């Protein structure tokens, strides 16, 4: 029962929180529920036909009125079939439309959230919000709601019919029905907990397969097959135990519940039989009671299952609404949006061209989830065309400066000036549209090489693409591929090596012809000679651009205009290569270490 936090008991299962999304379908939902109600009412009426047949035709030995009987039956049947068709279709439509709208809203909102959100939540977590939460909610507001209405209405109408037919017999049945309800409720809670454990264990097993497959080479090399197999089998054994236990438990419930319904039948027969024999009720009435005794348990079980599903859905609704309510750390002010447009409706006509002068003025910075200031009262002028290099050990915080320049984060205090104006005076998209970025771990999208290269410049011609490829010495890679520019790169660029991906992502950045170029440890896995080729390309491309380069190898940045040395998240030295060497402290030591290759 752990994890069943009571924080999730919202009024009406949290569904009111979804009202804005359901508003367009309000009419359809009401219509659908009405139809469902009618349909179940008709279902509860069917046994009455039987009653009439028994008490009229059979008892009085006459077929008088049979055509009318058939006519009425047929009319009701056709009516119900039409109702069923319409409500099922509406139900499915509402499910899919709600899904679609929620997914769109979530996806759209994600495009505007700042990086601190992405750093705090794993891709798998966010993905589940967009895909599975929305799906579950859609199902809840359509089928679950419909189903509970249908089953609830059936039980209520059956009870009403029974009460009008014979109160004493009805009371006996209701007593047993109440007992069954209590039993099902008790079992249900336990079953929900057990099923949660099965789901958890299931993801452990999937994880096990994932590891066995993606890590297969490592397992071979470490000769760890036996250990891995043992551990995996321990997990599948655990799964087997929980599953068997769960099924036994639910089998017990199923058996008891059907037993209860048979008990109801027994009571009806014993009690009702006596009543019938003493002519208090007719045989037809007895048969109606018997039909309900056998037919009411299933709707009861369904209603309870629906209610537990609706309770469970609260967690999904809460997670999704939390995502939708998430505020971006970096956002454009209403005035800025008014003038420059937002992420999805840019007003490009108002955009001033970006020059490329960057200035940090008295910037103090702390990550939103961090505790200490990473920068304090930091000043730096980067005039147009300057090359800034950032060096330091792995994990020293070299990316911070770049994150600020890109406005992936906002300074805690102080200002970032772009072309002499506070960065916040212009929209994020305005800045990003003039940015070129090559990442430490290059990311390509599934699709062709051409699609990927054109990502920053959708209308680039093939000639332009080839020019960019040549500049970074990647034209050979593409030419070696069978389909040339049309070759598929696979999901995440899986068909290419890391080095190739980096070269392509470089070409992609160049093609966008950015005013600002950012290279984030882009040269880490390219061999020295290829790197040399890239450096030559950089020297051409950085002309007329402001650039920030984060590099491992000091030899690649000796020519930079400003070198910033970072340690423990702070900038501890700055200057040109010569100045820093002259100083003979941190940079000097790093450089000498790399030069000699010895500590």
């Amino acid at each position: 029962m752990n994890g069943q936090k009571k924080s999730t008991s919202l009024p009406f299962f949290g569904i009111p929180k979804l009202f804005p999304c359901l508003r367009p379908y309000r009419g359809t939902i009401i219509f659908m529920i009405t139809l469902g109600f009618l349909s179940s009412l008709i279902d509860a009426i069917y046994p009455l036909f039987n009653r009439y047949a028994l008490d009229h035709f059979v008892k009085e030995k006459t077929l008088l009125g049979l055509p009318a009987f058939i006519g009425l039956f047929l009319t009701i049947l056709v009516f119900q079939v039409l109702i069923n068709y319409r409500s099922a279709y509406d139900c499915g439509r509402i499910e899919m439309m709600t899904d679609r709208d929620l997914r769109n809203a979530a996806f759209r909102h994600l495009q505007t959230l700042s990086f601190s959100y992405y750093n705090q939540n794993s891709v798998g977590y966010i993905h589940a919000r967009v895909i599975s939460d929305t799906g579950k909610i859609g199902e809840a507001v359509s089928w679950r709601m419909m189903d509970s209405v249908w089953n609830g209405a059936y039980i209520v109408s059956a009870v009403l019919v029974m009460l009008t037919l014979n109160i004493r017999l009805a009371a006996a049945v209701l007593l047993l029905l109440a007992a069954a309800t209590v039993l099902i409720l008790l079992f249900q809670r336990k079953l929900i907990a057990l099923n949660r454990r099965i789901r958890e264990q299931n993801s452990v097993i999937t994880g096990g397969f994932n590891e066995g497959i993606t890590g297969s080479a490592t397992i071979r090399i470490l000769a760890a097959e036996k250990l891995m197999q043992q551990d995996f089998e321990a997990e599948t054994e655990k799964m087997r135990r929980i599953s068997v236990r769960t099924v036994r438990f639910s089998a017990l419930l199923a058996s008891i519940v059907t037993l209860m319904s048979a008990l109801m039948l027994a009571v009806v027969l014993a009690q009702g039989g006596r009543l019938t024999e003493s002519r208090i009720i007719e045989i037809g009435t007895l048969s109606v009671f018997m039909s309900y005794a056998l037919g009411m348990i299933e709707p009861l079980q369904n209603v309870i299952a629906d209610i537990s599903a609706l309770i469970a859905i609260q967690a999904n609704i809460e997670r999704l609404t939390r995502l939708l309510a998430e505020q971006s750390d970096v956002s454009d002010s209403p005035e800025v949006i008014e003038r420059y447009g937002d992420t999805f409706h840019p007003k490009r006509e108002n955009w001033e061209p970006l020059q490329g002068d960057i200035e940090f003025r008295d910037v103090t910075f702390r990550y939103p989830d961090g505790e200490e200031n990473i920068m304090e009262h930091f000043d730096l002028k980067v005039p147009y065309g300057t090359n800034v290099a950032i060096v330091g050990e792995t994990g020293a915080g070299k990316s911070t400066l770049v994150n600020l320049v890109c406005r992936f984060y906002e300074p805690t205090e102080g200002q970032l000036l772009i072309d002499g104006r506070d960065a916040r005076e212009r929209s994020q998209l305005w800045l990003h549209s003039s940015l070129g970025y090559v990442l430490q771990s290059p990311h390509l999208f599934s699709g062709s090489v051409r699609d990927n290269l054109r990502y920053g410049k959708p209308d680039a011609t093939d000639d332009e693409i080839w020019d960019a490829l040549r500049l970074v010495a990647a034209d050979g890679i593409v030419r070696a591929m069978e389909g040339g520019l049309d070759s598929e790169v696979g999901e995440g660029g899986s068909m290419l090596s890391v080095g190739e991906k980096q070269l392509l992502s470089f070409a992609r950045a160049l093609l966008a012809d950015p005013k600002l170029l950012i290279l984030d440890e882009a040269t880490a896995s390219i061999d020295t000679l290829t790197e040399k080729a890239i450096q030559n390309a950089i020297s051409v491309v950085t002309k007329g651009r402001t650039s920030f380069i984060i590099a491992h190898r000091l030899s690649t940045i000796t020519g930079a205009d400003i070198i910033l040395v970072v340690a423990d998240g702070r900038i501890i030295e700055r200057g040109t290569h010569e100045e820093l060497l002259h100083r003979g402290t941190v940079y000097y030591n790093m450089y000498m270490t790399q030069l000699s290759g010895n500590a």
Partner: protein
Amino acid sequence: MYRHARGLRARLFFSILYAMTEKNQTPRFRSGPSLIRFFLRGSLHDFLFSILFASLVSLLDMLNPRIISFAVDSVIGNLKPVLPAPLMDALNGIGGISYLKSRFYLIGLLVAGVALLAAVCRYLFHALNARGAEKLVKRMRDTLYAHLQKLPQSWYGENSTGDIIQRCTSDVDLIKTFLSERLTELIRMIVLIVMAVSFMASISPRMTFFSSLFIPVVVLFGLIFHVKISGAFMKVDVEEGKLSAIVQENLTGVRVVRAFGREQFERTRFEDHNTLYTNHWVRLINILSVYWSIGDLLTGLQLLLVTVLGAVFCVRGRITAGEYIAFVSYNAMLTWPVRAMGRTISDMSKAGISVGRLLYIMNASPEEEPVDALTPPLDRTITFSHVSFRYPGSAGEAEALHDVSFEIPAGTTLGIIGSTGSGKTTVARLLEKLWPLEPGCGSITIGENDIRDISTSYLRQGIGLVMQEPYLFSRTLSENIRVSSPSSTDRDLRRAVRIASLEETIDHFPQGYDTFVGERGVTLSGGQKQRAAIAQMLIRKTPVMIFDDSLSAVDAGTDARIREALKTETAGATVILIAHRISTVMDADQIIVLDGGRIAERGTHASLVAEGGIYAKTWRLQTAAPASGEGKGGIA
């Protein structure tokens, strides 16, 4: 006797397995059914018993309407009771029908008694079924996992991870559901239909004839519909997969999306696809709604027919009121099995597809272990002699290695330098037998023995390799480092960690050695992962060690510190250092430079620098002194 038979069977199985490994092309399982039979070992009897109890449940369920009709006609009504002889005798024994007339509760007790028996059978049916199903699914998972551990790397290269996982999870579940639920359900349905129809026939053959006419109609209608619609379901699944992939890519590539300001493009792409997917579903829902409604209509018509026929037959005195009620009850029992049957049968084809997908994995040929495998000492000279290698499926492209020959005397260090794609990693892979060297493409020997004759597992136990992109398991740090030798002492662990320069890092973690590294080691930085992988190898104290560019993510100082510690702590081991960074290999006893799969240069650091080739050029680039002017060209 039984044990003996089992032993024989096991031996037979292994001998077949052995034969398979010898002849690569022979599939292990001829067909889907043979694979299913294999998986069903150990659980088949559970399923058979569960079906037996299921049939008992159906039989017991048949009794109630009979009791009711008896009660209505003879206990409530005044018809002469018609019962089988033994029951009649029993009835007369307790005092005839009048005895019952004054004790209606006995009828209730009878119903309750039958129900209790049915409940016990029902429980046993489900419990046995679950026992079989879970045994079956465990066997499938374990077998698949074990087989995957034997498949060669070339197989992994040809198949995507997502697809293999899909087969091992969704397809396994589907087959389990098929065997434990669908198949037993189908058998149950058939048993139920046969029983209900025969009980109905005992009441009135003519009424049964007319009312059963619906059965084939409804079953066929359901079957044809589901077969036709399955294509549309598959299409929807594919669309959903695409939608999910778009989200996945957008999330993992969030930096690229933002940096290029492509949010609008991403949004449009997603929304377009979302609409497409939704419309597919809505269309499908419409078709399904029509299907369900027609099903409702057919069921309703059949109910009408039975009601009217029953009434007419009753009026004409062919059946009694009690029989009428019983007939209607039997008919109601038929409704759902008949309606669901078409779908159940059509689902079988899906299971067939899944079995085929597992067959694909199970029939993939495992890595070969040589016949009469040798286990010679590995601290001997390693020789590559005229080795050429081409990755399968790369026909048309250049060979990964071409006529490569070199010798590493035992206890010495070889450095390998070369650009991306020059074949450095291939050297390591071939030596580990991760990829087999084809006959006639040269040879690799250790001491006197060709590695093709050496036991693969033995070889891998003796040759440690740290890969370019290290892979850590989602366990704690110490479990990760110990994964290949779980029995190693704490001293061994600390020694490995110290040499790998990981000590300080671990001290910084609040949980120290028990720090959980997350899936694939996501919680660690690139450099930390590399060092953990180095410790993972060092703890095994192998006579041969290969470092495949495994210091690339650590800074130069740590790189040097690790190499220094290696030199003193693992003296006597044969070492291969593969690197981009010349400082990593410059102290090696000999260095080879690979270029396009060929050895372009070889010698020591001093001789290579003097030679003035690729090596010397790379060396100058990497150590470019500020005054030399060469480095200046790097960034203008």
